[in-house]
């Protein structure tokens, strides 16, 4: 059962082809990874799903909804949330509020207004996020300002923000970038738990091959906007073209 269907997606920036006739589908409940060298179009693909970029050709369906018809802020309503390659947190807001930001579309404005004079609304809102903060192990940080927090916390907070909207599909853009080995392992566990405990489909962009190979159900390799390989980790590992592209990088990892 295919959940996210991408058909013949083509995106050009001023003549440069970022995505060239890309088609694949992501099944419900799997961890699907996109890999490829820098500039191969991974983030552009995310931006197309997310509505930031309007592709020139192709279609994106999620659970039968045509995502290209939606404005960026409506994407989250169809059950897709995302994180960013460069962490996009709000520095002078507490970690708790940063995460609450993700619950924006779940909070009823009317109820907020009605309960303005009491603390109740605040408590309802907090209840939404505290589970997830516990789940990610960052509950201690709720009252801390985001600015000055360690990078790892900021990354986790961003994932928490994406999770709090109760998505069906989460787009993770390089969650392990800039992490050390131990942190990367923790991230891997968290992604696995997102899939297994929360039942959320994961679409992952990542450069860390060990991480990708260890947790992905399927992997798609992009190069210069084209899909050059798609399959299970074992297949990809042995794919001649992939080895060609990744020779240097896999040796490092």
């Amino acid at each position, binding site marked *: 059962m295919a959940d996210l269907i991408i058909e013949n997606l083509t995106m050009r920036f001023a003549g440069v082809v970022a995505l060239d006739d890309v088609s694949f589908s992501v099944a419900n409940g799997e961890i699907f990874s996109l890999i490829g060298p820098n500039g191969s179009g991974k983030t552009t693909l995310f931006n197309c799903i997310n509505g930031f970029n309007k592709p020139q050709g192709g279609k994106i369906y999620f659970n039968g909804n045509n995502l290209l018809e939606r404005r960026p802020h409506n994407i989250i309503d169809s059950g897709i949330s*995302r994180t960013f390659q460069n962490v*996009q*947190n*709000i520095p002078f807001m507490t970690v708790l509020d940063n995460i609450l*930001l993700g619950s*924006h579309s779940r909070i009823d404005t009317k109820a907020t207004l009605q309960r303005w004079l009491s603390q109740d609304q*605040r408590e309802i809102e907090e209840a939404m996020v505290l589970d997830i903060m516990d789940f990610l192990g960052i509950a*201690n940080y709720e009252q801390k300002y985001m600015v000055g927090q*360690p990078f790892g916390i900021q990354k986790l907070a961003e994932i928490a923000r994406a999770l709090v909207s109760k998505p069906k599909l989460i787009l993770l853009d390089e969650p392990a970038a800039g992490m050390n080995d131990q942190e990367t392992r923790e991230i891997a566990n968290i992604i696995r738990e997102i899939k297994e405990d929360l039942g959320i489909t994961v679409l992952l962009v990542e450069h860390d091959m060990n991480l990708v190979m260890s947790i992905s159900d399927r992997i798609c390799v992009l190069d210069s906007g084209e899909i050059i390989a798609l399959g299970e980790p074992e297949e990809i590992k042995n794919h001649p073209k992939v080895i060609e592209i990744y020779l240097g990088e896999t040796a490092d990892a």
Partner: protein
Amino acid sequence: MKGRYEDENLYWIPVLIIFVFLLPFILKGLSFSYKYYLFVLNMAGIYIILNVGLDLLSGFTGLVSLGHAGFLAVGAYTSAILVDQFGVPFALSLIISPLIAGLFGFVIGFPALRITGMYLGLTTMGFGFIVKRMIIAFREWTHGSGGLDVSSPMLFGYTIKSDWNNYFLIYTFVIIAVIVGRRIAKSKIGRAFMAIRDSEQAAEAAGINLSKYKMLAFFISGIFAGFAGVLFAHTSSFISTDHFDILLSIYFIIMVLVGGASSIYGAVLGTLFIVLLDNLFVPLLKDQIHFWFNTQAGDIQSLIFGLIMFLFIIFQPMGLYGMWLKMRIYWKLFPFNPRQRFT
């Protein structure tokens, strides 16, 4: 789960409110010139109401406005005309006039959908000039640039006159404005505002409609400014286009920034700091300097004001609230470092 989140030491808010209402009595006991201090406080109070709204717009949402004196003028003139020429009760005007100022905010919000940064600052500055021009153009109602006499506020059959009574009227609304401002800031609306300021993409990904919330920010800000305008018009009992100068708009932005943008308490502190500095502290200091050096030079007053501002910014660029936060964080952490998951 209950009680894990506390709205920053709620217990001292009632204490503060009681202090605010006791202050006039304390001042009266301390000094025979309490009326002067009350007047300056009243002015600060009106500006606080406006600056809470300006902070939500410029501090939280990052939409710089250099035309807030225009909103103040809209509120003031609307109310003056409604009450004195159309016989609308003051209490009703307190609702209608801010809404009209809010509508003006809505209109000026349209350009803000596309224009950002200092470009937006200039657009709003232009709005300030356009409002002034409109006031002069509608001569039959506004008396042009000659200024307009305004009646004193009438509430529940009582006419509120004198600095003493105005103080209680204004500060009741100041407290309401600060509470409402903080509620907005701490709600999903406030979070959306800050997200728009710091990362439009993160905001959109989180489901925030940028256009809607930018317009909302202008609308809310207009309402606060209009409210301040109503109180301004009726408590100062004379308004003219000279009151709503472009320099006033710049002063408002300074007040918000000195307080430390994106904090409602910061806006309050900043307003009090600048208004008291400019209208109380510096004139008194100037008297001393004139006395010591036996001069009459008038520019000394602006020199002192400029110097204090300048040194303050050099040594405390994060503003008053930033200073307070730094202190607080320091004492909270003292003497331990926070337990961290990642090193």
